[in-house]
């Protein structure tokens, strides 16, 4: 029943951006695996995180909770958790639950990574707001 697979890829300038590719469903049973990955990233002070959700069919509160509970910590350290490539079913829920006020989403991993790099080149580790361009 434990149908999730998580892979980690470090990319971008100086490999500063961590991409977490998830396939499967994120529910109460599988969320702990994801939680471990995110925790380990934060422990290693890798705060620029892109979550690739293209292969995720379903996210329960346990999954959303991981993003929501870490976002403040990550942002206060000049990073962010960006969600990329949500399928329509997941995106609808994301919108319905108003998580779009809290978590930023991008069409693709490349968009999300580009956004990190843009922010990195223009503002460095300074405080960022949600806007894409100055």
């Amino acid at each position, binding site marked *: 029943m434990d149908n999730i697979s998580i892979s980690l890829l470090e990319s971008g300038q100086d490999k500063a951006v961590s991409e977490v590719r998830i396939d499967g469903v994120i529910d109460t*049973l599988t969320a702990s695996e994801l939680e471990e990955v995110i925790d380990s990233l934060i422990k290693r002070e890798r705060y620029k995180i892109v979550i690739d959700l293209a292969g995720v069919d379903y996210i*329960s509160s346990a999954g959303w909770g991981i993003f929501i509970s870490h976002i403040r910590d990550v942002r206060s350290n000049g990073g962010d958790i960006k969600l990329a490539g949500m399928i329509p079913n997941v995106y609808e829920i994301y919108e*319905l*639950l108003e998580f779009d*006020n809290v978590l930023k989403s991008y069409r693709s991993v490349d968009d999300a990574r580009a956004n990190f790099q843009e922010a990195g080149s223009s503002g460095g580790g300074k405080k960022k707001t949600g806007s894409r361009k100055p």
Partner: protein
Amino acid sequence: MFRRPIKEINAEFVAEERYLDSIQRIVKEACTAAGMSRRDVTAVLLAIEEGATNIIRHAYLYEKGTLRLRIVVYRKIIAFSLIDSGRSFHPEQTGKIDLEKLVESGRKGGLGFYMISKIMDSVEYISAAGFNELRMLKRIRGLSATDTPPLLRRMFTLRAKFSFFTFLIVSLIIAAAFYFVDRRTKMEVRGHLEDMVWALSSTIADQAAGYYINSRSDVEFDELIVSYTRANPTLKLVVLTDSTGLIRAHSGDISNIRKPYQAPNEIDPQLIGVHQSLDTTQSKLNYLALNIRAGPRFFGRVHTVYSSEPVDEKLAAVRKRIIMFTGLLLLVGILGIYLLSNYFVKPIAKITHRVRRFTSGDLETELPLEGADEFFEIARALNDMMTRLSKDRRNIIEREKMAKEIEVASQIQKTLLPVQLPAIPGLQLDAYYRAASVVGGDLYDVFEIGDGRFCLVVADVSGKGVPASLVMSMLRTVIQIHAVGARSAKQVMLAVDDYLKANIPPGMFITVLLAIYDTSASRLTFVSAGHNPMIYYQAKSGQLKTLNPTGMPLGVPVTLDRDFGSGLEEVSVELDENDLFLVYTDGITEATDRDGNQYGMGRLVEFLQQQLVGDEAIQLSKLAAGIVEELDAFSGFAKQNDDITFILARTEGRKSSSEKHQEPAGRAVIDSQTYRSTDSSASSSPQDGDE
């Protein structure tokens, strides 16, 4: 809105995560069949999973249970209920949750409920009679949550429908009555007219017969009919014919005389003495023909054309009156209907209002018992239900209060135990404490009182909960104050008793074993206020003894012949190298196995004997662990129903004692694992010392 349900589904599952899929499948089927949009179905599935997971993970944290799912499909709405009989949530956990606050706190708790309340149009959490119900409503299609018709409007539509139908029925009855009355009036009035015309015509016929007999002139004939037509405007035309059918007199046109009479086309000329209608649309004309006879002789006929217009006028007037009257009746009827509907609708509205107040937390006021018998019955049934529910709810609140109290008590309890045992030169120490599921009142304490002397205390209070904990905390303080600088254990105990006897609640008593260890003389003096005997191992002889000086528990009412002080015996023991003693509470000796047998002091002594004969120099911590293990093995899975507390102490070799002066001696007993397990207050038997 809540009309008859179209469909109802009930299912029951073992509350385990592997059944989530089956729950999802049922919900999905029901939603899709009801015509819910795919988007909504996805969201609802998520909400149901959150609700079910919460029950499995939290309501049934400590036990297995069942999860019931009920889906009721209405025309425009689906009601989902998840019912469990596990632990209920605190109401504040189910309140409105702010996403911003969740992010701010960095916590995950409450997110599930946040999601449910976002997805569903209405969420209610009801906890009563040992059942918890998470009730969720979801509208089918894009109707938003806000357009719920208010109670008033819903009542109005019911009232409008009631009024409309009754109005319709009353109107039909009145219309039928009107039709009947109108017809009758019409016939009556017409009959009246016909009678009159008949009478006139026959009078003319009689006179005309006389004229024929006397062979009057044309002028006379003419005068006869003209005089009648003038006098009666109803008569429009009167024509007299002779026996051959030629016109003898004509009230309209004299030039027609001696011409053959042509009857109007519409009538049947053969019908004599019958009123016939000449239906010209402008004026209502009628025709009547009568024979002119005198005895057997036939002279001719009177043809009369008359108008029924005055009759219609008269009829119209009557109708007007009837309509006015029925209109008035209808008005009265509508008023009556309105009042009637009040009679039905108002009690319903009242009951609804009251039930709503009940669900929003007002448990006190009852439904007024009024209205028709049926409503009276409904109100009474609801009252019964509500009283029962509020009673259950009070019980739950009571239970929650108790849980809170236990929490507070266990918190106090924790502050009672020393974090670190002091280092006593020449004496090794080990202590152990394990709380029972319900907070008990055990206490142990070891502290220095000056001049190389130390005070050791083990106590057990008879009560439980907050009062017991408070008394314990008082006891600990009082002992610490009085023990400092004291020479004898008895003196301390007397002072403690003196202070406490006024402060122990009636019915509560405390057993205390208080010992003072003098490091310079290696002497242990102690008193026991009704406490369990001390177990003493004399290394020299290799023998175990129980030392049980007399003494009454603190808090036992003093009788005339025996007071606390006189009954209190002090015992003094000179300790030699490797002597060992154990002070404990009845949590050990009164531990029971599954059959209810007590562990007892005999078993304890025997166990110690075995251990010490086997290895006299056994480490204290090992021995302590051994005691706990032995005890757990004895009680098996039986629930620990009292705190288990003990202090183990052993004298060191005399020479080494002075050297080891600085070494931290005692192990802080409540090892962190034990502590942690007592921390998760509700867990029943914190035996899981291992990770």
